[in-house]
């Protein structure tokens, strides 16, 4: 008899299982609510598949160990929440600059500061994008359903490996702690990507762009493979060694940005519902988008021409999608989110005055309910 592929997973559990399916074999973390289950489960599951878990002495060390393990050839992940995410930023920036594939999970909770550790929020949308110093594009994915946590965690690893970059999986407490059914893909259906490696024996320039498609992402050797290469957070040349030359440094900084921005359309995933003929658009993400979806369906049932755009990729920002939908005649755009208007600000920027943007906002742990969204739509009508 074929083994059932259905599982009842908690969001945080789906993240761990997705990561292991993607090939994660190293996790370093530090306990923090509401992401702790991810570390706990990794401590059980990773050694079962020959992988390594370590609880480091702090959040910064966890991110550092993840970078080290990835450079030694393993797919590596860490998980945290608000305050820990702030602490990790410097080393996430290191991973971006040194082009180290890795996945950072942030199960968002209420901030600022210690905030409300057990309550959901979506206030790290901008921090995920801009939390580090210097210019760098970053990929941020945000699941709304437990089965999507599973598939997006795999996707996060695939993008990290293909683009040699840190990828952030931005969850929230609701999605992290919710239990839902996940149907595991059949082994053959799983698409797993691995980083490009240099040809053994060749002269290896770890930061030199090559030819052709994806040539802007150089191959990555592992420490111990015999290439004896140098990795630094200093601005560096194609050989990986530091430079003070603007003519060498500028192409390097531009390349780590453009390898993401130039793939905007490929990277941007979103769910659209009734957007073709909508005259009111609701844009949301994560658990807030679940309420938004219910509201949109209920309103459509009574003939209101409202549509939903649920962002799955938050960064790079899907401005082309928003602009396409806004090319029709939109009376208004409603943006429900558990923060004081971070997504709304970005949507407003993309619309450039083409339609008013109205926020539906909560910030102290209370969820956005479908009725809140329905009320906002009705006020426009």
């Amino acid at each position, binding site marked *: 008899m074929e083994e059932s592929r259905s599982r009842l997973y908690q969001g945080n559990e789906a993240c761990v299982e997705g990561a292991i399916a993607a090939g994660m074999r190293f996790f*370093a973390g530090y306990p923090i609510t509401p992401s702790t289950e991810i570390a706990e489960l990794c401590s059980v599951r990773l*050694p079962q*598949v020959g992988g390594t878990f370590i609880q480091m002495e702090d959040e910064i060390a966890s991110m550092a160990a993840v970078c080290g393990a990835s450079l030694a050839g393993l797919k590596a992940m860490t998980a945290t929440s608000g305050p820990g995410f702030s602490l990790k930023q410097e080393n996430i920036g290191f991973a971006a600059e040194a082009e180290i594939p890795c996945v950072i999970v942030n199960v968002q909770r209420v901030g600022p500061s210690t905030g409300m550790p057990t309550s959901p929020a979506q206030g790290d949308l901008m921090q995920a994008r801009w939390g580090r110093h210097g210019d760098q594009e970053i990929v941020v994915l945000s699941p709304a359903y437990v089965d999507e946590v599973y598939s997006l965690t795999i996707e996060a690893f695939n993008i990290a490996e293909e683009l040699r970059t840190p990828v952030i999986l931005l969850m929230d407490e609701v999605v992290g702690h919710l239990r839902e059914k996940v149907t595991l893909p059949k082994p053959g259906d799983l698409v797993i990507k691995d980083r490009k490696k240099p040809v053994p024996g060749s002269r290896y320039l770890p930061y030199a762009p090559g030819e052709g498609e994806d040539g802007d992402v150089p191959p990555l050797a592992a*420490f*111990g493979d*015999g290439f004896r290469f140098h990795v630094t*957070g200093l601005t560096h040349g194609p050989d990986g060694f530091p430079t003070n030359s603007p003519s060498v440094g500028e192409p390097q900084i531009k390349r780590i940005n453009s390898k993401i921005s130039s793939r905007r359309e490929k990277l941007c995933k979103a769910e659209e519902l009734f957007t073709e003929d909508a005259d009111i658009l609701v844009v949301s993400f994560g658990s807030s988008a679940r309420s938004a979806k219910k509201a949109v369906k209920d309103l459509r049932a009574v003939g209101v021409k409202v549509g939903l755009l649920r962002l799955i990729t938050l960064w790079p920002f899907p401005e082309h999608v928003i602009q396409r939908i806004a090319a029709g005649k939109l009376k208004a755009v409603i943006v429900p989110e558990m923060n004081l208007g971070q997504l709304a600000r970005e949507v407003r920027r993309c619309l450039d005055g083409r339609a008013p943007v109205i926020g539906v906002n909560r910030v102290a742990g209370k969820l956005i309910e479908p009725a809140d969204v329905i009320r906002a739509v009705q006020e426009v009508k």
Partner: protein
Amino acid sequence: MGSDLTKYLRVEKLPHIWCAGCGHGIVTQAIVRAIDELGLDPAKVTIVSGIGCSSRAPGYMNFDTLHTTHGRAIAFATGVKLARPELKVIVITGDGDAAAIGGNHLIHAARRNIDLTVVCYNNSIYGMTSGQYSPVTPLGSFASTAPYGMVERPFDLCELVMGAGGTFVARSTTYHARHLTNVIKQAIQHKGFSFVDALSQCPTYFGRRNNMKDALAMLNWYKENAVSRDDWAKMPPAERGSKFPIGVFRDEEAPEYCETYRKVIEKAMEEVGAK
């Protein structure tokens, strides 16, 4: 003359950034000489550093090298070592990098007894940022941020690492270059966490402010003040003054972290029948 060490160096990256008279070249040479004398496979040696004058050394060393963020070298190295335990992982750090911003990683790596060798290029000053006091700047010494003399009590880094459970702990100086090479060799051979406090002169920012006009004066100071561990033990405290002990202070066996974790993996795999 020993064997030609240039094969361990990226000679095309020279000249180095260090000031004339800086001790860091001597410590770097001691590490490379230790690797040579131990006959390690250069492809299986990874060198990890943090931020500071000392942390620029790996850029000149022909191994897999990782120049990380300030204070975090040991944490990065922990990831490298756990991912590939067969590698020899050597951390190059400074006193500010290892004991101030990175102090937490230093004590916890020592506590875990993970098989890393940490060589601290200890000049008791922040050289790269031009001479601020560090956690090991001696009381009363001058620094750009201690213009009236250092008022904080310093760490003894060897005592600190021993207190945290480090299983191999030693000190030497750039004056005692052969001794330094020998203790680094022992540290690399040691299975478990090993720490070498390598006193290294910074004539530019420590010497000049503290009545030692050049590198030679500083090397002489090491010569006159360093005493062997055994002599130190016999020396009455009243006579110690500015003297300090060098040598191997601890060399003990204890379960090594990667090996212990390997057993965790075996047990977990057995339980799920993956073995």
